[in-house]
C-alpha cells in the first residue's frame, strides 16, 4: 500500500502544472450560463484541446493523451489548484462520452467524440420530465418508429436540462415501446438541439442565470444512426452514465482540495475576527482530504478491473454535503460582508444544487441502504400506492 507516484506520473504532474500556470486566465471568466461566458468557456476548451489537456484520459485520436486513471486524477488536482475555469463541456466529456465509448459504434465514436473533446459541440442532458424526477423510470416522452425514413419521431417534454440554453446537442431517454412499463422499452437518443420540432425554453436558476432549460419535442426526427445502444435497451445504457455522474468523473477530489485550501487561506485572513468558525475550517479540510484518499482507493480498485457500482452513491452524498458545508464555513468567516457577491457566494449557490442533481441524496441513500447494506426494498403494494 502506498501513495507514491511513478517518475512518469510526477513528470506529467509537473508538465500540467507548468502549462496551467502559464495559461489559466488571470481573471475568472464570466458565467458559462450567459451568452458571453458560454463563448469564453468554449474558447478556453479550445486552448485546452490545442495543448491536449481537454480530455487527457481519452485516446490520442480523439484529442486525448491515453492517460491512466491515476494521471487523470493528478491532472484534475492540478487543474483546480490552478483555479482554472469550470468545464462547459462537462456533461458531454464526463457523462455522455463514457457511454459512447462503451455502447457507441465506431462510426458514432468518430463522429461525436472529436468535437465533444474540443468544446466545439457542447452537449446537454435531457433526463428529467415534469412528472419524472427522482422516479426517472416513469418518463412519458415518446419515440415512435418512422420506418420510411429509417429512424424515430420524438415527442414530449424534458426539463432541468443543464447547459441546454446555449448547448448544441442533447442526449436522453424516450419511451420507444408504449406497451412496456418503467425501465423497459426505453431508448437512448442523441439529437442536435436545432433540429426541426425542438423548442428550448431557458429557465432562470436562483442566481438569475439560465443554467438549465426545458426542451419541447414535436415530431423531432432522429435517424437510426443517432440511437445509442439497442432500441429498448436505453435504461441499461443510461445507468452506466448515472454511475459515472455520481462517482469518480463528475467531482474529482481536486475541486474540493483546492476549495479547502482556499478556505484555510481565508481563515488565516479572517479567523481572528471569527474564531468560532475554526472547527468548520478543520472539518472541511479533513473531509476534502478523506475524499482525496477515498478516490485513490477507488482508482486502485478500478485499475484492478473493479467496478464503481453502488459506491458511486456513497461518494455523491459525501461530496455534495461537503461542498455545502465548506462554503457555509467560508460565508461564516466573511461575517456581515458574506452577502456581497464573490467567488464564495457563487460557489455556495452552485453547491446548493449538489444534493438534488444526478439523483437526489435521498435516492442515493436508498441505493446505499439496499445495494450495499442489503436492506429490503419498499414492499410492492406501497410502491403502487405512490404511483397512483
Amino acid at each position: 500500500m502506498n501513495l507514491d507516484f511513478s517518475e512518469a506520473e510526477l513528470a506529467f504532474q509537473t508538465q500540467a502544472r507548468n502549462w496551467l500556470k502559464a495559461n489559466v486566465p488571470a481573471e475568472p471568466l464570466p458565467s458559462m450560463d450567459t451568452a458571453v461566458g458560454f463563448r469564453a468557456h468554449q474558447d478556453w476548451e479550445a486552448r485546452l484541446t490545442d495543448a491536449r489537456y481537454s480530455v487527457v484520459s481519452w485516446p490520442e485520436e480523439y484529442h486525448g493523451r491515453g492517460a491512466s486513471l491515476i494521471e487523470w486524477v493528478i491532472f484534475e488536482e492540478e487543474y483546480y489548484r490552478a483555479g482554472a475555469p469550470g468545464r462547459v463541456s462537462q456533461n458531454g466529456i464526463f457523462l455522455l462520452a463514457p457511454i459512447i465509448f462503451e455502447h457507441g459504434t465506431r462510426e458514432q465514436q468518430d463522429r461525436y467524440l472529436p468535437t465533444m473533446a474540443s468544446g466545439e459541440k457542447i452537449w446537454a442532458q435531457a433526463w428529467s420530465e415534469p412528472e419524472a424526477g427522482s422516479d426517472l423510470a416513469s418518463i412519458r416522452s415518446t419515440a415512435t418508429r418512422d420506418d420510411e425514413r429509417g429512424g424515430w419521431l420524438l415527442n414530449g417534454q424534458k426539463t432541468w436540462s443543464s447547459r441546454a440554453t446555449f448547448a448544441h446537442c442533447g442526449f436522453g431517454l424516450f419511451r420507444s415501446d408504449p406497451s412496456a412499463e418503467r425501465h423497459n422499452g426505453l431508448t437512448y437518443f442523441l439529437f442536435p438541439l436545432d433540429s426541426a420540432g425542438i423548442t428550448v425554453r431557458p429557465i432562470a436558476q436562483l442566481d438569475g442565470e439560465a443554467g438549465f432549460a426545458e426542451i419541447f419535442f414535436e415530431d423531432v426526427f432522429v435517424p437510426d444512426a443517432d440511437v445509442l445502444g439497442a432500441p429498448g435497451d436505453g435504461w441499461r445504457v443510461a445507468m452506466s452514465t448515472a454511475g459515472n455522474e455520481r462517482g469518480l468523473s463528475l467531482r474529482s477530489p481536486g475541486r474540493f482540495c483546492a476549495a479547502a485550501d482556499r478556505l484555510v487561506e481565508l481563515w488565516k485572513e479572517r479567523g481572528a475576527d471569527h474564531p468560532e468558525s475554526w472547527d468548520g475550517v478543520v472539518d472541511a479540510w479533513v473531509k476534502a482530504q478523506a475524499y482525496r484518499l477515498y478516490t485513490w482507493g477507488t482508482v486502485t480498485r478500478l485499475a484492478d478491473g473493479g467496478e464503481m457500482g453502488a459506491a458511486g452513491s456513497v461518494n455523491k452524498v459525501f461530496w455534495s454535503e461537503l461542498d455545502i458545508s465548506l462554503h457555509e464555513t467560508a460565508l461564516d468567516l466573511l461575517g456581515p460582508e458574506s452577502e456581497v457577491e464573490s467567488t464564495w457566494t457563487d460557489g455556495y449557490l452552485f453547491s446548493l444544487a449538489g444534493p438534488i442533481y444526478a439523483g437526489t441524496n435521498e435516492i442515493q441513500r436508498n441505493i446505499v441502504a439496499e445495494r450495499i447494506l442489503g436492506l429490503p426494498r419498499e414492499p410492492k403494494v406501497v410502491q403502487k400506492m405512490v404511483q397512483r
Partner: protein
Amino acid sequence: MRFELTDEQTGFAAAIDKLLSSSDASAVARAWSVDDTGPGLALWKQLAGLGVNALLTEEAQGGAGAEPIDMVVGFEQLGRHAVPGPWVESAVFLPVALGSDEAVGALAAGGIGTVCAPPHVPYALDADVAEQVYVVVDGVMRGATTGARHRSVDPTRRLFEVVSTSSTTGGQPTTGGQPTTDRAFDLAVLATSAQLLGCGERLLADSVSYVKQRKQFGREIGSYQAIKHHLADVRIALDFARPLIQGAALTIDSPDRARDVSAAKVAVAEAAYLAARTGLQVHGAIGYTAEFDLSLWITKVRALVAAWGTPAYHRGRVLAALTGER
C-alpha cells in the same frame, strides 16, 4: 500509487477475525469488566500467538518489524470484537516509547504493559494485571506504582491512577537531544482510531442484521426509509474515515504525521459515534439493555472518542499544521 490493502494484510485481518469470532469475545469482555480477567488473559495469549503484540517491535528486539498499516489492520479487528485489555499501551505505545530492549522484548512476547500519559491519557488501563507500569513525565518514561481505581463509562476499561517512581526507563532522543514520546503517542492515536473504526463497523453490521429481522406494522423495519437513511449515513461516514486512517499509517514518518493522525481520529470518532447513536436508535429499547451485546460497543465508542486526545485537541493539531503554527 496503490491505495488498497494487500492480500497478506486482509489475510491477517481474517485470521484475527476468525480467532475472535470463535472465542466468544463478548463474554470475555463482560467477564473483564467485573474483574474476572482470566478469559481475557487467555485470549491475550492467543492473539500474541498471531503476532498482534509484536507488530511494531523491531526484529532485533524480538518483534515482527511490521508497518503501521499492519497494526491498523489488526487493531480494527480488536475494536470489532470489543477485545478488552491495554492493547494500545502494550503493543503500540510502549514498544515505540521504551528504550530498553529487555522490556520491549517481553511485551513483544506477550507481556502486559500499561501507561499513564497526562494530560491526554490521565489513567493507566488495567494496571492491576500489567507487569510493566509507566508514567510519562515531560516526555520521559518513568516506572510507576499502581494507585486508586476508577470506573469508566466503558466498564471493560479499568482505569488506575499511578504514582511515578524516580527511575528513568526510556524515551527516544530527538535531534535536539531531548527525549520525546511524540511518535509513540501518534501511533497510539492511530491504533485507537483503528479500534474505533472496528467498533463502528460492528455497530453498523449488528444494526443492519437487526433491522432486517425486526418487524413492525407488518414489515421489516429496515424497509422504511427513516431507518435506511440513518444507516446509509453511517456507511458513508465509515467509508470516508477508513482512508484517513490508512493514509495516516503511510505518512507516519513524514512531517505530516501529527496532522494526518489527528485528522483520522477526528473523522473516525465522529463516524463511530454516529454508528453508536444510530445503532441504539434503530434497535430501540433492547439496545439500551446491559444484557444485549450492543451496549459493549456503545459505551466503548464513547470512551475511545476522548481517549488519546479529545476531538477538540486533534482538531486543534490539524489547524495548527494547516496554518503553519506547529
